[in-house]
């Protein structure tokens, strides 16, 4: 077994034939009920020491009935946020957890802002959640190193901890994850990081950052594990369970919080606990990843070719990310001014000489960025 309590592939090799024999002998009426006799799998969440179910619950799209079912089945990490459904989601979690606060950990997130606003968010969240404390309080959507070390954020989190309003603190990150996670690993401010993590965006820099943070004692929780709701450009279905298995194969990820909107999805997600990724599932994921590549820039640094006009494509793309991803035109313009060879020539090109290995259409992206930032 792995050090965090999960089964390794070797364990699977040991127990696989026996498990298959049991499965083969299981009557069909029982196998139609995947939740009954559910084998829970737990891992230790970094320095917090909390033992959490490896498949937990992203509550945002889950109706109350589904949240209740998850908790009843032993899921013990509920992820919500102050802004989800403008607060209704915290209310749903609060109603489910009323009278059984000790059966699951609650994690919520607040937006960065001035100190007073952030403190007000914490108090409102606790009221909605019908509790005096949450187990984890996070800064929502941290996007760069500067935000990791933002003094107001750190002060608010520390004060909330001291006041007993939260046991642990952390942040969530959707963009520029490697930079933010690396920064957190260098500090001792954060106990937990909730990061986007799936088969499509886990480039070497992100994997390395996650390993580094894990080694530093930070608990890593994965979200957007099944690549959200991106449609499959090839049509058909997405390999949903396989994607979740892929995430849990990473020994530095303790827990995943897939968004779950109905009982069927809950059954599917929970059934992944203790399962490993099969060969054909892996291949299916590869095909799906290829079909959806280019939807997100992962800043993988593997662009191929060189621009004949010398445009500094990586820097321009970074500005485009600030502009369209972060929606921070000020930051984008400030950075764009510093790009030595910007994308001015791009409008005259019909085809880009540089190839994005993830499949993004660079020429229109670069032209658009220049038009908006120049």
């Amino acid at each position, binding site marked *: 077994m792995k050090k965090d309590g999960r089964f390794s592939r070797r364990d699977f090799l040991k127990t*696989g034939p026996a498990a298959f024999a049991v499965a083969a002998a299981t009557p069909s009426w029982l196998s139609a*009920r995947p939740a009954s006799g559910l084998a829970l799998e737990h891992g230790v969440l970094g320095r917090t020491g909390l033992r959490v179910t490896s498949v937990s619950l992203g509550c945002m799209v889950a109706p109350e*009935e*589904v949240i209740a079912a998850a908790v009843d089945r032993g899921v013990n990490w509920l992820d919500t946020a102050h802004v989800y459904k403008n607060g209704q989601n915290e209310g749903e979690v609060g109603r489910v957890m009323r009278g059984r606060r000790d059966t699951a950990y609650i994690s919520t997130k607040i937006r960065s802002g001035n100190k007073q606003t952030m403190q007000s968010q914490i108090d409102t969240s606790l009221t909605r959640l019908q509790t005096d404390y949450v187990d984890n309080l996070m800064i929502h959507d941290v996007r760069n190193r500067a935000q990791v070390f933002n003094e107001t954020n750190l002060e608010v989190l520390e004060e909330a901890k001291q006041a007993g309003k939260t046991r642990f603190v952390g942040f969530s990150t959707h963009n520029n994850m490697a930079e933010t996670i690396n920064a957190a690993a260098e500090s001792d401010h954060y106990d937990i990081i909730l990061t986007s993590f799936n088969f499509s965006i886990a480039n070497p820099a992100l994997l390395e950052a996650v390993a580094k943070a894990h080694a530093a004692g930070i608990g890593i929780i994965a979200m957007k594990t099944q690549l959200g709701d991106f449609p499959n450009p090839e049509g058909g279905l997405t390999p*949903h369970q396989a994607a979740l298995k892929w995430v849990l194969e990473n020994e530095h990820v303790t827990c995943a919080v897939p968004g779950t909107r*109905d009982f069927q999805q809950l059954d599917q997600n929970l059934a992944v606990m203790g399962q490993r990724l*099969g060969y054909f599932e892996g291949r299916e994921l590869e095909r799906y990843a290829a079909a959806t590549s280019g939807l997100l820039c992962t800043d993988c640094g593997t662009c191929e070719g060189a621009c004949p006009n010398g445009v500094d494509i990586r820097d321009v793309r970074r500005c485009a990310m600030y502009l369209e991803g972060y*929606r921070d*035109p000020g930051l984008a313009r400030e950075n764009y001014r510093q790009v030595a060879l910007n994308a001015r020539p791009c409008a005259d090109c019909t085809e880009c000489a540089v190839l994005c290995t993830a499949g993004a259409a660079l020429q229109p992206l670069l032209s658009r960025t220049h038009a908006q930032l120049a």
Partner: protein
Amino acid sequence: MPTPTPRRRKRRSGRPVKRAETIASSVILTGLAAIFLIVFLVGSSGETRTLAGAGSLWTGEADILPPRIDPLALSGTWTYGPDNLYEYINGQAPHYLQFGFEAVLVGEYAEDAGAMPELIVDVYHMGERSNAYGLFMESFPPEEELAPLGNDGFYGHNVAAFWKGPYYVRVMALTAEDESYTVHAAAEMVAERIQDDEAGLAEFAAFPTEGLLAGTLSFSKVAAFGLHYMKDTFLGSYEGEESVYRLFYSHLETEEEALELMAEHREYLGSAGEVTAVEEGAQEELVWGRHQYIGAILMIRRGNLVVGSVRLAERGEAEGAVRDLLRRVEVEP
């Protein structure tokens, strides 16, 4: 230091192995290996699910955005579709996508063209009025009160939101200062620029008003009550003698769709709860049962209409309420 004596493997002595046993062992081992290989390669049974499809992108309703919201002017616009909504609202995207999100037009307002924006107007095109209403109601802050803004709306601190026509609109100030007055005025300006003569959703006219709890009429695009086969469901909550119960209906496109939904319901309820009664007639079909987390549930299908109740524990009472709603829905245009 004494040199360690190398361990010698003991050679087994025993009876000679017969050829038949060797063959049998080989067959068994080969069989086990094949079974194991299948399990190893395939992993567990991997059910998959359909994801939200890509809708049409924004088609030019930019005139919804006022050119000026004094003292600010429109300084930039952005659009996002289903494939990149994540880049804009990150983890909240699934909530919008499940309500049929088609595109969002984002307007930024600043004091001058080069300045940082101080106000953001998001106009989400949800395709249909019911989708916009459903999203609005599911995103309504518990601390706020409904206000006459658009069809329904609310005014909060530095934020206002409403639905009107197929649009869900959210206006926010990007400042720590209290700019609520500007935000509220901006929301009203945007609401006036959206043409929609209907007051609310006509679909709710069928719900009986007696016992109906205020503010509980809602619309669920997918998976009402967490049941994966439910779609386009209109719901209302009622004060019962013992507890709150819910009535609902879903007008499906075709009778085949309704039949399929009922078949899925029977099958799922049988596995996740119990089906107490199934009655199939020439005109309609009734399923009565109980789900572990939803409670008593009765559903009647007639044609392409599915009507039901949840948490009405007594069969006669449930059927009476459902048949009353069924009659009303059939009468309403």
